[in-house]
């Protein structure tokens, strides 16, 4: 069966974001960009399913600026088979991404779509659920375990308070949580080989999808700063502080 894995190029998770002085957004000029960590986990899971013989082909997709090509090459170097890049001049919101992915799913007919649970830039946590709505497929969100058998996927989900298990008829949508797996690093030979793997470039218009934004960002600001605290030298001083703060009794 075929798996579709959407991946997003985001500000590297180790970089502290800086808000632009004019309040229009976060400064992304000359900063390290990487694959969204949850998407790495999604690619890894697809590869593991292929290694188990469950999956025959892994198609990775990214939507955004042409540089998202680098992110797709990373996924190809990890072990994906082929890539689709959908370029767009404007920022595409989760609903627009979900509509494009629906169009791609109609064309590619995957049995499973594995996405990250959220992108660490917009922190939306929407795209997988929206794609599931548009396709009418079942959704296994926040997955910490995925098992495919007999035309169904059984997903253990991380929920408030513990874990929940659901069985979804294929085709289905899965979104990954951090604990699903430990993504592999691409080796140098695989990075070289990835350059020869097929990468198709399309535009949103090719799919006839309207991705015009529904939201306008009026401003982006720094969160309010905490005032500097004090350091105490001993446990006794700490206990005194706790008393002053009313934590005790």
């Amino acid at each position: 069966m075929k798996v579709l894995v959407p991946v997003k190029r985001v500000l590297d998770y180790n970089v502290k974001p800086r808000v632009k002085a004019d309040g229009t957004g976060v400064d992304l000029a000359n900063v390290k960009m990487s694959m969204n960590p949850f998407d790495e986990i999604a690619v890894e899971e697809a590869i593991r399913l292929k290694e188990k013989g469950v999956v025959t082909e892994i198609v990775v997709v990214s939507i955004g600026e042409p540089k998202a090509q680098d992110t797709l090459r990373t996924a190809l170097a990890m072990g994906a088979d082929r890539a689709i890049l959908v370029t767009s001049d404007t920022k595409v919101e989760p609903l627009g991404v979900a509509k494009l992915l629906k169009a791609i799913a109609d064309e590619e007919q995957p049995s499973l779509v594995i996405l990250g649970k959220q992108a660490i830039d917009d922190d939306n946590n929407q795209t997988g659920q929206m794609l599931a709505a548009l396709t009418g497929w079942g959704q296994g969100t926040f997955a910490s375990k995925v098992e495919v058998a007999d035309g169904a996927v059984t997903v253990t989900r991380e929920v408030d308070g513990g874990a929940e298990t659901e069985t979804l008829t294929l085709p289905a949508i899965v979104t990954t949580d951090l604990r699903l797996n430990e993504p592999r690093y691409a080796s140098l030979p695989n990075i070289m080989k990835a350059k020869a793997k097929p990468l198709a470039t399309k535009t949103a218009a090719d799919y006839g999808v309207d991705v015009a934004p529904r939201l306008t960002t009026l401003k982006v600001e720094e969160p309010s700063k905490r005032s500097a605290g004090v350091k105490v030298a001993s446990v006794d001083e700490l206990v005194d502080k706790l008393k002053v703060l009313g934590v005790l009794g």
Partner: protein
Amino acid sequence: MKTLVLVEHDGHAIKDATLPTVTAAAKLGDVTLLVVGENVSGVAEAAAKIAGATKVLVADDAALAHMLAENVAPLVASAMADYDAFLVPGTTNGKNIAPRVAALLDVAMISDILSVEGADTFTRPIYAGNAIATVQTKDAKLVLSVRGTAFEKAAAEGGSATTEPVSGAADAGVSRYAGSEIATSARPELTSAKIIVSGGRALQSGENFTQLIEPLADKLGAGVGASRAAVDAGYVPNDYQVGQTGKIVAPEVYIAIGISGAIQHLAGMKDSKVIIAINKDEDAPIFQVADVGLVGDLFTILPELTSKL
């Protein structure tokens, strides 16, 4: 504006996360609560007492047991014909259902709102809380999830809403609940605890969590949290994780023990009223946000602290 609020519950009792969501909805207009599940008449009765709600819609059906998104979302989407906004608590359940509803309504969703700036304008955190965006929607209907720590809780008693059944629930036939493992704890729930004692990688083992963190938490009547490192190392269950991808908390007092203070952890706790850090590395980033810091070895500090409280 007429708003519909999804009631978060465990089948028996309403969860606290519902209450700040009601407060956010009341800023937009008239509040109707939606209770979905199976055998939820008790929950509906409790919901009717929440102050600020005028009506409770009750969708009680076997297909809605365990609140599978595939079955709940179409029901909500059709109920939205009579409402202008759908609000969910920012819980895993809310996050699972709301985007599916938004896509069925063909509207954008705004996640984790921190404030209501106007009928179509909201603030929300992006980049792990390192920036706050003010966003305005052009859509006719709103779908919002609410950051529970950003709004006061509505009173759980004092209201007298009328209840009304909702029919039309159906099994979409694509998903099936297969079981759950819910951790039981006598301690306060993390997202509503007034005090949280949280441990990191420096604890070195699950036993040390039990022997050092838990007695301190019990002395303070506190909830117990953890950093991702402590969860990944298996010291405590996943459900304890505080951070960008775990729980977002804002207690009165957050005590971070052996936690360095990575961006992703701070995203989950930096709105706490008072932050106390105990760490042996005086350069740990946690000290940049801590109100009170103590540099030292947690293995000597914690027993001493616990005995002196």
